[in-house]
């Protein structure tokens, strides 16, 4: 298994194999109550053909990050700093025209709620064919043939007939399949899936996840998969980024992060969710408190008000000093490597049942 690409310092060396590389990204929104630091110094890389999973609670900045990659924030109300390099091209400073060429072509997105993401006014087929016509200059007829081919590929029965249906005539699972068809029609190099299965039932979710995985093998796209469900991530992703309060707190391969997690927040997530094979007599261990406000985030480590291990670090480091996330495998935490390992094995692992 490969780990995330190592980079020297904050700058991505040219010729790195990362297909998308995000460096020290900061996204701020100005609101009436003050400035919301939605993303605060985030760096990550995605390799071709790989899946990067991003987990975090609502408000951790995972969706904002990916809308930024697509340039979908209103420049009037938001400021974006840092670097987003997609296949050698800088996106933060790109013009709207350049972004338009990318969206739906090189980079595509699957949204959480397919009912609100599809327009009720146009047929599903037309919405799927539109990006293909726009980006490849194909004729209406060619685009229709291609759209029907895609509908078939994602498992919509009788695709030629369903082409003319409206979104309300589709069920939830079929709408999400149509969204996938729309996202993949231009053969994108990067697919951003923002909680694509959260609105679906489990049996449908399992179908969609397997479908995405199989399609990825065929199309070879890189995927950024955003979710709050660690179970889904463990099925889908190769690499994993855990986000909290607009920052990445832990990264590594999925295997590393889920089997030997290093950050107390990741420990908390794992021990707060019941598992099908877990011990039912074992009470769940919730993370105390609530996620912090992004208007006024805690000083030092953003997790310190909810962390049960600040005394292990000692002193006031947790409240004063912001821990850095090392490149590659690691966690943004002041505990040293040995402490993390012993704490996890002695205190956390027995709780996981």
């Amino acid at each position, binding site marked *: 298994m490969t780990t995330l690409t190592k980079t020297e310092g904050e700058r991505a060396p040219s010729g790195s194999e990362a297909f998308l590389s995000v460096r020290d990204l900061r996204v701020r929104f100005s609101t009436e109550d003050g400035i919301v630091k939605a993303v605060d110094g985030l760096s990550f890389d995605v390799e071709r053909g790989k899946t990067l999973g991003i987990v975090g609670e609502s408000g951790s900045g995972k969706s904002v990050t990916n809308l930024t990659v697509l340039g979908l924030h209103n420049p009037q109300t938001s400021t974006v700093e840092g670097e987003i390099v997609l296949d050698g091209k800088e996106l933060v400073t790109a013009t709207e025209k350049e972004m338009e060429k990318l969206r739906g072509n090189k980079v595509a997105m699957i949204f959480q709620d397919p009912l609100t993401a599809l327009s009720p006014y146009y047929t599903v087929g037309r919405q799927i064919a539109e990006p293909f016509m726009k980006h490849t200059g194909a004729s209406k007829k060619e685009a229709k043939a291609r759209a029907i081919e895609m509908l078939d590929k*994602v498992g919509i029965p009788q695709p030629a007939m369903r082409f003319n249906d409206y979104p309300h005539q589709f069920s939830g699972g079929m709408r999400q399949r149509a969204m996938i068809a729309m996202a993949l029609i231009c053969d994108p190099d990067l697919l951003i899936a923002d909680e694509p299965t959260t609105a679906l039932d*489990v049996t449908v979710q399992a179908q969609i996840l397997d*479908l995405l995985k199989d399609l990825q093998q065929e199309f070879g796209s890189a995927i950024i998969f955003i979710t709050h469900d660690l*179970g889904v991530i463990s099925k889908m992703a190769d690499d994993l980024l855990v986000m909290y309060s607009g920052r990445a707190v832990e990264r590594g391969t999925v295997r590393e992060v889920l089997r030997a997690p290093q950050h107390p927040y990741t420990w908390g997530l794992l021990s707060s969710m019941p598992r099908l094979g877990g011990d039912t007599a074992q009470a769940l261990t919730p993370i105390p408190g609530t996620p912090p406000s992004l208007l006024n985030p805690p000083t030092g480590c953003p997790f310190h008000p909810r962390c049960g291990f600040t005394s292990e670090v000692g002193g006031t480091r947790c409240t004063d000093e912001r821990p850095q996330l090392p490149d590659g495998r690691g966690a943004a935490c002041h505990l040293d490597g040995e402490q993390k390992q012993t704490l996890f094995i002695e205190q956390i692992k027995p709780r996981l049942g």
Partner: protein
Amino acid sequence: MSDKLTLPKPQGPVDGAAEPLLSVEGLTKHFPIYGGFPIKRKVGAVQAVDGVDLTVGVGESVGLVGESGCGKSTTGRLITRLLEPTAGRITYSGQDISHASRRQLAPVRSEIQMIFQDPYSSLNPRQTVGTIIKSPMEVNGIKPKGGIEKRVHELLELVGLNPEHYNRFPHEFSGGQRQRIGVARALSLNPKLIVADEPVSALDVSIQAQVVNLLQKVQEEMGIAFLFIAHDLAIVRHFSQRLAVMYLGKVVEVGDRDSIYNRPRHPYTHALLSAVPEVTLDDETEDRERIRLAGDVPSPIHPPSGCRFRTRCWKAQDKCATEEPPLIQISGNRDNHLTACHFPEDPTTEARAEDVVLDPALAALEKEAE
């Protein structure tokens, strides 16, 4: 009537002889569909719940699982009598309440309480927390010892909120805290049964566990029976001693926790369990069976004949279309484990020699990859 319940039996699955707190027989709810012009007439019905049998013992927690549209929430609303059943019988501690009038229901209503899914829309934004929690007591004319205010403070403390927040409004609280207010409101009348309709699914992962633990504490310490409605199988497993699995308005399998999760018989239960994405922590290999159904749940307006699952089932035969399987203890099941299936699966969740993949697109892609 309530005198009968002053001595709650120790919790645990009720044996057949003891009288259950709540029993439901053949519960049915059809929502009419009107159409036509200019005179609208009934053109069909959404068969949301169609003949559900269920019992809940004193102090027992029963889980009700199924996918959206299977009628689990409607069942909950029928039991709390927020909806009028089309047919069937609801018996609460020996009293038939299926068509009881408002007046007859009044004493029962205070004993059956509900916790709703969305803590944002189930609390009145114009009332303070104190008003929200005390209004059930005022409506029912209950005067607790030491005054209503003291009782509200106690309740707030019990659910882990600061009693000083008495005069705050719901918008000042986070999602998890709001759900705690909902729990405190449900507890204010000392209920015997709480119907919890997806109480944690609107909450963040790290907050879900807080609320599950709170409900579990309430259930164990106060001996309140729970009907826990949810779609998250892992959370239901953690919370419930007994479970009923619903599909398209019918209970397809019911049994204790171990029977349902480790020895399921109905193909739908197998499919549901195998669809749950699980974090594998150790180096244990993936040894659970893999079943991928095709398509979505059919419409409850025109449910399939016979067994309702047959259109998505890999074992379906002609018999399934003509004859509806009864919910019975089929051979090989333990006591109180009932399954409605003509051709049940083996009681195991271990991986099969060959995966069941019914989705045509998936099957095609996987064949190509091989």
